[in-house]
Every structure is written in structure tokens, then in C-alpha cells.
């Protein structure tokens, strides 16, 4: 269960989120839509625990989090249950594709043998099994996006967040990604995907959260 209650976020002297409240039952899918600057990325950053909300409170994966509540150690453990696909990939430039994807598993202390199996499986699934040694700079934008997606899902997160995940993918890869999200959903993960791609939303209709000027204007 993901629950936000009057969550606000101040950044750079202004309110980028104001009084956002919604609930997402475990294992459900949500589209997050809205025009540029509406606060989609900010909301995803709050859900990813990259920033604490400035006001309000939220319950994520059973943990209450507010402007001052939630210990640092506990938040770190919670982040391991959250997969995030960033709009700008955010791969570590000095690590190759394999080590980038392996990072969440190693942080979680998984045995190296299991890490190899899981990482190779995911890299094969995203079509990069022949490029495991490539550094991000040696991969195209779409390939980097696929590495980022593999990294986000390799730990089988309870909550999967994606910020414009299809922005650098062709139509075929975008559809494959939607299949992956649906599969994660089926396995019990809660999935929230922010997108501008209206066509994608129409092809995969689901419960939608719409933001405008930092305010939630639609939940349904």
C-alpha cells in the first residue's frame, strides 16, 4: 500500500507539490500524467525517497514518512525495495552494463553467483547480452535506457517507479517495456509510470493520476 496524505514539497523557494493525497493498493498500476512542470518528476522523487516531503505524511511499504520522521538507515532499506527508471538514465559512467545492473543486488548483499545469473538474465531480456562489458558512454541512448530499466527491476522491487521510460525507446521496445511493467505488476509490484506519451496511455488504459501546477487534479 502506498498512501499520501496532504503531501507538499517546497523547492527553490516555491511549492512544487501542494496537498497531494492518493492511495495505491499493493500490486496496482498507475499512470502519472500532466504537462511539463506539473510536478510529475518531483512526485516521483518523493516516492523514491530522494527527498522528504516538506509537509504532510505518507506511508510507503508499511513505513510512515514525514518531513522529519523515518530514520536514515530505515529509508536506505526502503529504497532497496523501490526500483526507479530515470528520464536521464543515471547510470554510473565508470561501471559497465553488467556492474550497473548488478549494483542493487550487491547493495542488498545477494551472493555473487545469484547476481551473475539474475543480471545476465535481465540483460538478455533487454537485448544487451552481447554488450555487458560496454560502458554507458559506449552505448546508444536507447541501450542506456534499457540498462537503466534492467537495473530498476533486477531486484524485483515492491514499488517500481518510471519517469518517461519510453522517451528513448522505439515503439517495439516501448511495448516490450509495457509488457515488463505488466509482468512486474502481476508478480505483485506496485507500478507508477510518469509519461507524456498519450498514445501509450491510450493503448494501455489504467487508473491515472493527473497533476497540474503541483496539485493532483485527477485520481481515477
Amino acid at each position, binding site marked *: 500500500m502506498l498512501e499520501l496524505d496532504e503531501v507538499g514539497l517546497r523547492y527553490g523557494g516555491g511549492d512544487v507539490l501542494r496537498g497531494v493525497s492518493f492511495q495505491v493498493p499493493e500490486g496496482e498500476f498507475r499512470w502519472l500524467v500532466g504537462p511539463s512542470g506539473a510536478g510529475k518528476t518531483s512526485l516521483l522523487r518523493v516516492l523514491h525517497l530522494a527527498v522528504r516531503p516538506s509537509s504532510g505524511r505518507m506511508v510507503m511499504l508499511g513505513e510512515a514518512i514525514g518531513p522529519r520522521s523515518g530514520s536514515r538507515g530505515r529509508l536506505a532499506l526502503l529504497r532497496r525495495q523501490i526500483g526507479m527508471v530515470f528520464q536521464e538514465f543515471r547510470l554510473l559512467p565508470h561501471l559497465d552494463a*553488467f556492474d550497473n545492473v*548488478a549494483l542493487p543486488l550487491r547493495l542488498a548483499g545477494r551472493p555473487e553467483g545469484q547476481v551473475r545469473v539474475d543480471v545476465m*538474465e535481465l540483460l538478455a531480456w533487454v537485448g544487451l547480452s552481447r554488450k555487458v*562489458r560496454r560502458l554507458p558512454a559506449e552505448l546508444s541512448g536507447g541501450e542506456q535506457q534499457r540498462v537503466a530499466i534492467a537495473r530498476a527491476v533486477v531486484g524485483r522491487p515492491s514499488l517500481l517507479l518510471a519517469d518517461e521510460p519510453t522517451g528513448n525507446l522505439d515503439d517495439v521496445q516501448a511495448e516490450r517495456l509495457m509488457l515488463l511493467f505488466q509482468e512486474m505488476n502481476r508478480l505483485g509490484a506496485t507500478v507508477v509510470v510518469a509519461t507524456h506519451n498519450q498514445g501509450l496511455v491510450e493503448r494501455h488504459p489504467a487508473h491515472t493520476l493527473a497533476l497540474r501546477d503541483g496539485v493532483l487534479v485527477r485520481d481515477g
Partner: protein
Amino acid sequence: MAERPHNRTGEPAYRRARVRRGRADDLGVRRAVSGRMLLALVGAMAFLAALAMAGLAGASALAGHWRAAGDELTVQVPDPAMLGRVMAALLAAPGVVEARAVDPAALEAALEPWLGAGAGRVGLALPAVVAVRLAPGTSAEALAAAVPGASVEAHEPWLRRLAALLWRLEASAAAVVGVVGLVAAAVVAVATRAGLALRREAIEIVHGLGATDGFIAGRFARRAGRLAGWGGLLGVLGAAPVLAGLVATGFELAPGRDMAEAAARAVPPALWAGFAAVPVAAGMIGWGTAQVTVRRWLRRLP
């Protein structure tokens, strides 16, 4: 299962990648924290610390030696013919542990730098000298009354001033060691902050993936501790020839003796232990400073 690319030896490509880059440096700390700069600066600090420790040990040894001399005094007998009576009176006086007449030849040898050779033969009257060791707490004035006609030279007043000087020297040397430690910590902190600035994005990424403060701080601390430890070792090794030269001069090593052996005998065991501790202490300072610096820096992240 996915197809796994192999190299000519049949080793999976991903394993080669692991060997090539390794996971111990997920954050790229090796490049972020400059090795040469930290080695050189901590090495210089360790060099100074080793010299200061040697100074501290030397001052302590001298202070101990002279403190022991505080219970000794010298009795000068202007007429050497009276030496027998003075000796008898000294040995009978309470509190005298030992009274030993100084050999006139030894006295002449001691005065030779000032009076030239054969001072006695040219008619210069030299007094007889008796070295006396007193029981602790015995008054030199009381002893002077027991040997009329002789002059009693107590060492205690100038030894007190000398002890005060040595105490200040010891305190100064200890302060230098402390300051050097603080400067080393500051150097490590600056290098660590520079590394954090370089790896800010990588840190934010692994933080977002669930890395704890301890994981991130540990990566930097391991690097800083290792470099500081090596720097400490290099500093001590660099100080060794300088200290050997000082020991050779200070202890007036006899010509022909093996220098290293003589130096080893002259240096107190505590100082050897101190030198051995410098790299360890430098490593601990590096590790601890990096831990504190990184953990403080991470407070900006939730």
C-alpha cells in the same frame, strides 16, 4: 537462460568485466581521491611527527638522566692534603650514600678543553674533587657544615632550571605531534571533500539504490585510510636517515662502530614502537576522518 559471450579462454565476458573493473570501487573513489597528493602530504606530516617523537624521546631520556643527578653533588677540597679528612667526614655524615674521590688525571682531562694539557705541571693548583651521592631528601647545606674548609657544589638548583627547560621541550614536541595529527586529518578531510564533489552524482545514484551511509563512507574511508597509512610509512622511512644522523651526533658514536647497530642501541624501545605506530595512526586518522567527512556530507541527502 541468456547466451553469455565468452572470450578466447572460454571465460564469460561479464566475469572479465568484473576482473577488469572490480566491484570494490563502485563509486570510482580511486580516481576521485588523489593518491599522490594524499601520500605526499601525509608522508610529510609523518616525517615531521617522527622527528618530533625522536625529540620527545631524547628530551625525556635527558630529563630522566638529569633528574637522577639531582641527588648528587660535588665537594671541592682546595688543599688536596685535606682529602683524607674530608672523605672520612663525608662518609660519617648522615644521608651520604656514596663518596668517591675523583681521579686527578680524570679531573685534568675534564679541564683540558679550557686549561690546556698538563695544567697541574705548569703550577696551576687544582682542588681535589669528591663526587657524593646523597639519599633522597638529604640537605646539601647540612653536609657543608660537616666538611669545613671544603666547598660544596649542589647540582639541584641548575638541574631544576634544566628540568623546566626539558619539560617545555617535551611539551613542545608532544604538541608538534598533536598538531601534525590535526593537519593530517585536515588534509584527508580536504581530499575527501574534493572526492565527494567529483563523485556527487555517483553517490546520489547509489544512495537512491539503497546504499547506507556506512557503505558510502566505508568506500571513501578505505581509500583514505590505505593512502594515509602508506604515507605514514613513507614519512617514517624518510625520517630514518635524518634521525640516524642525529643519533650519531648526539650520542657521539665511537669511530669504527657499526652505525646502524649503535643507533639501534641508542634509540629507546618506546621510540621504535612509536615509529611503528606512525603508519597505523596515520591510517586510522585517514579512515576516521574520511568516515566523519562523508557521513556529514551525506546529511544533505534524506
